[in-house]
């Protein structure tokens, strides 16, 4: 009875098309943002920032980018890690080679470079799809892995591809403490999420979904398949590139190509599947799930008074990931996001059963 739309009638299309049409949702979102921006930095511990919140924010951003490509436009990509790498290393190059380069510009340039590479490796999608496209994106992944390992120029002549950054600052404000890094990531995530949400509910979003659902019919309506697919790759790679730059700069500080290897690609794909394909919220759910699961698994035996070796724990993690992927695909292919909206539907009727 609290989550009712009674009396919330929309009299303009503008009101009908809002991101959060239900008042209670808007209030909740506002509350959430206030907590995230004002309360959390004050009370969270360093551990929470470094191990949970910051990875969650950055991986959500990457998952958001991937969801646009896979969930909305239906183009499978197993090379996301590589695009994150491009973003990270490109940003690094701009940061160290250009004196006094502002952080935000480095990050965005990292995104742009990832966009160029993404569009390039997106070209095969114009001719192939499904599992064939998956193999093509794997080519991108392995090639880029190798490039950052062996082509010294790309890593500012670091022999093993290992680089590091320190002493970051944004418009004069330091980005050193965990709380400051958290706020930077949070701000960027909110901005990108807003823009992504706008894109998916506009004409381009519908073009992407049309390509996903039936690309042959899309051409007949006047949708240009080339533009639709490549724009999806472009937007997705940009977001993933910025996320990669953040991952290197803010979360890791020091990194090498292995930080963005195929396991990272699979991890992001799993986030998107479990969280919900074709859903902005789903990206957040998926990222939260994947970030928290290993931590929970580590602590769980302790709660039951058992102790298991770290090796077994990591094997169990693999098993649980795998089992959950299959579980979600079978039971709820639309992921946690669908479970969430189903729960909200039930809440609208509560306390009545139907």
């Amino acid at each position: 009875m609290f989550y009712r739309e009674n009396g919330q009638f929309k009299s303009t299309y503008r009101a009908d098309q809002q991101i959060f049409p239900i008042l209670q949702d808007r209030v909740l979102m506002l509350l959430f943002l206030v907590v995230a921006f004002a309360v959390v930095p004050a009370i969270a511990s360093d551990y929470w920032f470094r191990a949970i919140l910051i990875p969650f924010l950055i991986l959500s951003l990457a998952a958001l980018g991937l969801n646009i490509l896979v969930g909305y436009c239906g183009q499978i990509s197993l090379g996301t890690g590589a695009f994150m790498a491009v973003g990270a290393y490109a940003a690094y190059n701009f940061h160290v080679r250009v004196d006094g380069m502002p952080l935000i510009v480095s990050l965005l340039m990292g995104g742009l470079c990832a966009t160029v590479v993404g569009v390039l490796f997106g070209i095969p999608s114009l001719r192939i799809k499904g599992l064939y496209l998956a193999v093509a994106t794997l080519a991108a992944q392995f090639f880029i892995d190798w490039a950052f390992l062996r082509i010294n120029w790309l890593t500012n002549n670091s022999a093993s591809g290992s680089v590091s950054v320190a002493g970051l600052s944004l418009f004069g404000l330091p980005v050193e403490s965990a709380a400051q890094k958290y706020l930077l990531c949070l701000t960027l995530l909110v901005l990108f999420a807003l823009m992504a949400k706008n894109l998916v509910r506009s004409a381009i979003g519908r073009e992407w979904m049309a390509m996903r659902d039936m690309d042959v019919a899309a051409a007949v309506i006047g949708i240009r398949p080339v533009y639709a697919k490549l724009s999806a790759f472009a937007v997705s790679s940009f977001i993933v590139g910025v996320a990669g730059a953040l991952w290197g700069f803010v979360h890791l500080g020091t990194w090498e190509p292995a930080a963005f290897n195929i396991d990272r690609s699979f991890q992001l794909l799993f986030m998107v599947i479990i969280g919900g394909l074709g859903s902005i919220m789903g990206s957040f759910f998926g990222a939260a799930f994947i970030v928290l699961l290993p931590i929970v698994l580590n602590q769980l035996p302790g709660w039951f008074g058992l102790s298991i070796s770290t090796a077994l724990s990591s094997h169990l993690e693999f098993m649980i990931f795998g089992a959950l992927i299959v579980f979600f695909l079978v039971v709820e292919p639309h992921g946690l996001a669908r479970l969430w909206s189903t729960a909200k539907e039930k809440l609208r009727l509560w306390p009545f059963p139907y």
Partner: protein
Amino acid sequence: MGFFLETLFGGLMVGMLYSLIAIGFVLIYKASGVFNFAQGAMVLFAALAMARFSEWLPAWLGFESLVLANVLAFLLAMVMMIAVAWLIERLALSKLVNQEGISLLMATLGIAYFLDGLGQSLFGNDIYKIDVGMPKEPMMVLESTFQGGLLLSREDLVAAVIAAALVVLLALFFQKTSTGRALRAVADDHQAAQSIGIPLSRIWVIVWSVAGFAALVAGIIWGSKLGVQFSLSLVALKALPVVILGGLTSIPGAIIGGLLIGVGEKLSEIYLGPMLGGGIEIWFAYVLALVFLLVRPQGLFGEKIIDRV
């Protein structure tokens, strides 16, 4: 020239090993239209089972004969692969029948992770040996033509022969038996096959078991050569470009594709590698597959893919 030939042979042998794994892919795709990302994990799982059982069985049952240990381990590993096939069909495949290819693909990815974790939990994650009596000493051939002769690995030759035998066996199975015919019907159209009374579930268990058998053979050969370890499952990812080249629906294609990739990798590493900084083996196969995808997506021997409105 001698060095070139040695590299060539080496590449052919490696290629044969890739083909062994790729055959499993093709089997499953041919018979169920599913692209099995978990083939590599199946190879690792089977190899682990074989390695550990051949170690444990003598201890459990108190005998010493290596041959007996190997035979029993093989049988036990095969039983496990059938059990895995049955579980996969029951818990994943049958539920995902009506969903699009992309869901099935991602499901096999999940299965791969699951099998990786399961295998290592059950059997451990060290490096293990498989000793099935493969000849380890290399041999020299063509000593009269080339000075010093060419170095060939006996083990690889035996592997090649086994792979060829496997291909012939499977080709006969598909063409000549009624089960093989049923498999081909199922691959063509699930619903039509069901409507004429072909038991889909049983067929799929059979297919995945046969693929499990292929995985076991591949695992034994690879494991005997390299030792059984986690990286096996990553090497198996190489089989993807192999089936792209050869064609997803062709078993002979898997062989040819494997040979091409094996030779290509070795030759490109030796002759192209130094120009590019070395280590290009990790991407050569994939980029080659990419080129094929743009030029001839159905591979050398696959069926043409048609999109109807």
